[in-house]
């Protein structure tokens, strides 16, 4: 470590300026906005935490969105971590086909969320969609998917697993490459099976990667917007009305910036709390 404070500040100043201007400042503005209300005439006034207390006390739409968002996150995040981890484990070897499958699994990541949303809205179309063609050709009943309040959220979850598993798989593959080969060799001498090696060596040594993927993915999924905006518009019956979309509606449809900013601030607070607990929960207690 060097102690030249002036040099250190010179090196960090450009980045810090960008962060302060384009991240910290907007977060601050958003928070201050959440403490105001705009009247019909367009004049703004300071109301303290009234937007928040109104949301928590009298706003059933907010509460619905709140629970839908929590449910969505509680399912989609573990599912993506699990699927990307399994894919990485399957592709960690060096067979002639591993590179091909890595690319296949990564392909959806190259497509933007907007397009992914369009693709899945057509695949899961209740009348003409590809998914129902498959179901009926196997003699199963066609499903309503996004048209049903019970299934719509699962449609969004599937879409997200499809889109982002390949991306996080890359992080797990990187983690796997760092586990020393000697550990496996030692285990083999002791006669350990593949399953034992995975459970006793691979998974414990991947905890740091896992906590990073979980945290980054959680923050990302809390802000899911495009699929809701393009496919379901929060429906049917509010079953997919995620908080980010509710905030957007508040700001751009109802022109209620105070409420919109309050929702965003709550969302950010939830993300920070979640990240904190996930970091605690998955804290890597391994050194090698």
């Amino acid at each position, binding site marked *: 470590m060097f102690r030249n404070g002036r040099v250190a500040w010179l090196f960090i100043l450009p980045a810090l300026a960008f962060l302060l201007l384009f991240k910290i400042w907007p977060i601050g503005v958003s928070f201050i906005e959440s403490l105001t209300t705009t009247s019909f005439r367009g004049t703004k006034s300071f109301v303290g935490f009234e937007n928040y207390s109104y949301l928590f006390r009298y706003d059933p739409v907010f509460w619905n969105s709140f629970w839908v968002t929590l449910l969505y996150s509680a399912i989609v995040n573990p599912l993506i971590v699990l699927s990307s981890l399994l894919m990485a484990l399957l592709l960690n070897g060096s067979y002639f086909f591993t590179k091909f499958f890595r690319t296949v699994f990564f392909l959806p990541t190259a497509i933007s969320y907007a397009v992914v949303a369009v693709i899945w809205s057509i695949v899961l179309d209740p009348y003409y969609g590809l998914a129902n063609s498959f179901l009926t050709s196997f003699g199963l009943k066609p499903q309503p998917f996004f048209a049903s309040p019970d299934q719509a959220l699962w449609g969004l979850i599937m879409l997200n697993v499809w889109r982002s598993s390949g991306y996080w798989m890359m992080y797990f593959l990187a983690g796997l490459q*760092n586990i020393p080969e000697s550990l496996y060799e030692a285990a083999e001498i002791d006669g350990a099976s593949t399953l034992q090696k995975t459970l006793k060596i691979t998974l414990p040594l991947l905890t740091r990667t896992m906590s990073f993927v979980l945290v980054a993915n959680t923050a990302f999924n809390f802000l899911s917007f495009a699929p809701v905006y393009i496919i379901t518009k929060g429906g049917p019956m509010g079953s997919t009305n995620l908080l980010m979309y509710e905030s957007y509606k508040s700001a751009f449809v109802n022109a209620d910036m105070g409420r919109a900013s309050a929702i965003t601030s709550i969302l950010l607070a939830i993300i920070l709390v979640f990240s904190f607990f996930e970091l605690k929960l998955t804290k890597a207690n391994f050194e090698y």
Partner: protein
Amino acid sequence: MKSGRLWKTTSLFIVLAVVSLFFIVPLVWIVASALRPAGSLYQYANPLTWGTFIPSKPTLENFVHIFSKLNFGRAIANSLFVSLVTILLTVFVSSMAGFSLAKFNFRGKNLVFAIVLITFMVPFESIVIPLYILVKQLKIDNTYWALILPGVANGLAIFLFRQFFSEVPSEIMEAARIDGASWFRIYWRILLPLSMPAIVTVIVMVFMFQWNSLFWPLVATHSSRFEVVQVAIASHRSTESTSWANLFSSAIAGSLPPVILFLFLQKYFVRGISGTGLKG
């Protein structure tokens, strides 16, 4: 022993092939739809036949149409330009910051590091509205700068560089100092060339971010001159009518650059992540 290995390889292949169907079937269908003459999209979806996935008379006319008539090339060029400038600025600015955080002790370091960590947990979408107000005040709305500059503020990139530089032994720098090298020269000539894997990771990350962004370009620009790829793709779908042929062909053409980039950089990308302390 040998037949056991063959059995293992074959079963692994079968499992992977089945899993990959989930990822690839929708894509094959989209490609097939884009290679058909413009017309009804759902015509071939139900009932399920080979014709659903293999067009009987494949044609590239949809692709020719979006480039020659709808100016999709301009959108590709815009996105490439925006991505390239963002990448250059981000790599430069973030690696300097990473160097500072990895190798120096100074007053306020913990505060700066906290700011870096917080900003990478606050994703872009959540601050779009105040960001728009800011960009308007800076009088750069509806310019390339509005698309580029907010993307440069990237806490994750700084974090990745910091992790990477922490692993470089300080002795190299001390030796260079004794030889009379300036701090900038040490950063530019020693650290930056060593950090290729980290640079590649940041390039992929920033490129994906800029290439796939839709919400922010929609808010920050409104002239067709600045139309980026995702905005151009989305413009083919509206509540009144959707041109599936245009939508799918532009979606496919627009997805090629990231796929090509991935194919080239795959190896370095994995190495870059693993070199930054995010390992096990």
